[in-house]
């Protein structure tokens, strides 16, 4: 029997009640880091995102490439930080974009995460999967160079911390690639955030 799985019905995303002062800093940072990780996974992802904006009907919130760039620069660690914040609609649009792309990148994410697991267990040599390890290293290196070039200098994180962040973002992205990904991502953004 064909299963009819749709997005959960009454799951509307909105700022939790205590966040009266708008989008917290940590949320803006998290969202931008996720977008950066997507870019590191696929260098053409920005073009895909711009197409997705039209497909998802988000032109009203993000009308142009520059507007998209401005939204990403609400991350306070960015070199071009403009002291702007995100509205609820803008954050919703970015969450939607992240989750839609994460669904498409699912296979790649699984490959990279299982490679990471094999590296920890020291199985790469035995299984002859050096090529996968090279994929993972390439992702980490791309993330590092993107991070260093976009964030303010001197870099807020050390090279090891950037690597940790890149690996954590892979897990995070996998967890938001599911059917309820948007809802889960939204809740995790606000979990532990400070107003």
């Amino acid at each position, binding site marked *: *029997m064909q*299963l*009819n*799985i*749709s*997005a*959960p*019905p009454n*799951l509307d995303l909105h700022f939790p009640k205590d966040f009266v002062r708008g989008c917290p800093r940590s949320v803006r940072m998290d969202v931008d880091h996720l977008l950066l990780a997507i870019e590191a996974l696929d260098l053409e992802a920005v073009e895909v995102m711009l197409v997705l904006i039209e497909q998802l009907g988000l032109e009203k919130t993000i009308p142009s490439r520059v507007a998209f760039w401005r939204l990403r620069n609400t991350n306070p660690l960015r070199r071009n930080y403009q002291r702007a914040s995100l509205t609820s609609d803008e954050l919703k649009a970015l969450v939607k974009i992240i989750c839609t792309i994460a669904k498409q990148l699912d296979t790649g994410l*699984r490959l990279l*995460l*299982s490679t*990471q*697991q094999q590296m*920890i267990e020291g199985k790469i040599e035995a299984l002859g999967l050096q090529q996968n390890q090279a994929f993972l290293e390439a992702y980490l290196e791309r993330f590092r160079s993107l991070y260093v070039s976009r964030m303010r200098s001197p870099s807020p994180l050390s090279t090891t911390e950037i690597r940790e962040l890149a690996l*954590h973002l892979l*897990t*995070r992205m*996998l*967890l*938001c690639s*599911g*059917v*309820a990904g948007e*809802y*889960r*991502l939204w*809740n*995790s953004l606000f*979990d*532990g955030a400070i107003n």
Partner: protein
Amino acid sequence: MMQRSYNLPSCSLSIEGISTSGDVLSILTNFGCRFNHHPEQIVGGLDLLKALVKVVGAYAQALKSNTSVAIPDEQVMLEPDGKHLHILSVALGESASANSQKLQIKLNTIQLFDLMEGLDRLCCDPQTLPELKLVTHITDYRSQSPMTAQAIPAIAGVFSVAIASAALYLIPVPKPDPMPVQPVPAQPQPLPTNSAIPKPSAIPDSSPEPPSSDAPSSN
């Protein structure tokens, strides 16, 4: 009798039940959850399924925020094992004490995700057990640390402020130094002396000079 199954690369979840109206599976008879890497299947009824949904949902949510916490429940428990492995322990059987069989499965992040995704699909499927809801809040588990543990830092803060203010109270308030009396020049300098100086840049320098020359004379 109806059957629904949710298949993911490393985990498959199958639901069996009876429908009361139309296509909607509304009464669960039993469910099974099998991992590819483990021979034993998790089998149980509605209570176990609900506990699983709750624990796995909360655990995955905590994992995302990079704070791995053990999420215990009566029948199901998920805890981190190192940085990348997770142990799922399930008490099978009707009662937790009598002839219950404990099943422990080690999951890596991908297998955990597949389990979460299977359960999420089930929760979001309007045609299967519509009363099952997603669990995305972990605040219930966060605040499990006893109240005293949370209160100690606050009380310590209040006390240190009190002690510091008591110590500072003993220090005398410094008295202001008596201001040296500045005599007012009796007569303003006549303007012509300024205009007599040829360079305009020297004007600011010339003005403080007259009072200082007057001061010794009045004292």
